[in-house]
């Protein structure tokens, strides 16, 4: 029954493989094996071959695979975004719609006004955007009294008092400026009332100054230590 000398019989090839893999019940094969030496030899060789094939160890995935897979996933996300974008273009009904989709999102209208303000007067634009958002402080009730007690001749003898006076004056100035700038601001950018408001507060130390006023004071005098020195020399 062998197809050629030395080759197993074609009709029993699959059955021999199944037997070598562990399939034990096949009466036809058993009968054939009894009288075919070639197929008996083939069965032994197939068993050995399968044993060898099953012997090779499976290499575990290397650690580097984790990073590669993460990279592949990120690439997949980018591809999906690009696909969605292309699909969005295909849904355009008119040339104008297509052009609009290709152009992407438009800049908000407010951007043009903000840029115009920046170009016209950067300092004013900055102050109107950030200074106006500072909290309002109220002057203590006895401020007037304390100010009256400050005699003109005592300024140079009592440096802390002079420093506080300078700070208060600058704070008043800054708050007035901030209040004036705040007046004409667009209500969309501010939660403060539209009209200028003057609030006066006395502070007892340079460190207690409003942060903006502190910044202005140190900016004018080259830093707070310098401010103190200049005040000491007769500010």
């Amino acid at each position, binding site marked *: 029954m062998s197809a050629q000398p030395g080759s197993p019989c074609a009709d029993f090839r699959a059955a021999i493989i199944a037997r070598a893999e562990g399939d034990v019940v096949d009466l036809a094969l058993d009968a054939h094996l009894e009288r075919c030496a070639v197929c008996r030899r083939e069965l032994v060789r197939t068993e050995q071959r399968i044993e060898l094939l099953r012997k090779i160890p499976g290499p575990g995935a290397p650690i580097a695979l984790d990073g*590669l897979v993460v990279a592949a*996933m990120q690439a997949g996300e980018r591809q999906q975004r690009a696909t969605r974008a292309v699909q969005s273009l295909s849904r355009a009904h008119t040339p104008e719609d297509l052009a609009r989709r290709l152009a992407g999102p438009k800049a908000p209208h407010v951007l043009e006004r903000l840029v115009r303000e920046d170009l016209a007067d950067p300092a004013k634009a900055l102050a109107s955007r950030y200074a106006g958002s500072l909290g309002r402080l109220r002057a203590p009730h006895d401020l007037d009294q304390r100010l009256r007690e400050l005699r003109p001749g005592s300024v140079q003898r009592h440096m802390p008092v002079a420093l506080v006076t300078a700070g208060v004056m600058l704070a008043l100035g800054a708050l007035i400026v901030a209040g004036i700038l705040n007046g004409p601001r667009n209500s969309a950018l501010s939660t403060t009332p539209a009209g200028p408001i003057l609030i006066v507060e006395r502070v007892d130390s340079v460190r207690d100054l409003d942060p903006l006023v502190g910044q202005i004071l140190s900016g004018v005098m080259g830093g707070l230590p310098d401010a103190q020195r200049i005040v000491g020399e007769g500010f």
Partner: protein
Amino acid sequence: MKSDPDRELVEACQATAPTGLEGAFRRLYDQYKDRVYNVCYRITGNGTDALDASQETFGILFRKITEFRFESKFSSWVYRIAVNAGIDHKRRSSARWLPSLEGGSDQAREMARLDVRDERTEPPLTAATRHELEAEIQCAISRLSPKMRAIVVLRYVENLSYEEISEALQISLGTVKSRLSRAHEALDRELTPVLDRHFLR
């Protein structure tokens, strides 16, 4: 259709599309990474291509998992993607890495030997013999046609049943058996000297 042991994890991925290697997708990845890499390694014949093919496999899984409809077992789908990725990489890099059918088997043996393992647990001679044997078997597998290679790897390396192979490769049971039979014929030619040496010692 039999219940799929991976159904819960796959459905979790489908409910919340994975955004990275975490959650349910991470668990699926941990469950399959060795099997995917092993299939890719045996089909491509070298670690570099196996790594690329495994990366591609998980990239496809990540992109397509929401489209999986449980018409086959999830594992069959994973094996199908891995086999196809492995065959594609092998085809692309065959000129660079692997021998043609006409010759160059020495080169393949050298490549197979590049696989690095922890040999501290076995004597050097045993390790060398095992490496040599593994290289020869890998070389014989590498010289099969891609279709036969896939069958041999899934059947004898991954221990899949004929039905599982049929589902993974989307071919009939008869085709699985006939391809396996032809693969044995081809392997017999390649492995006869190895069998003689190994079993007549």
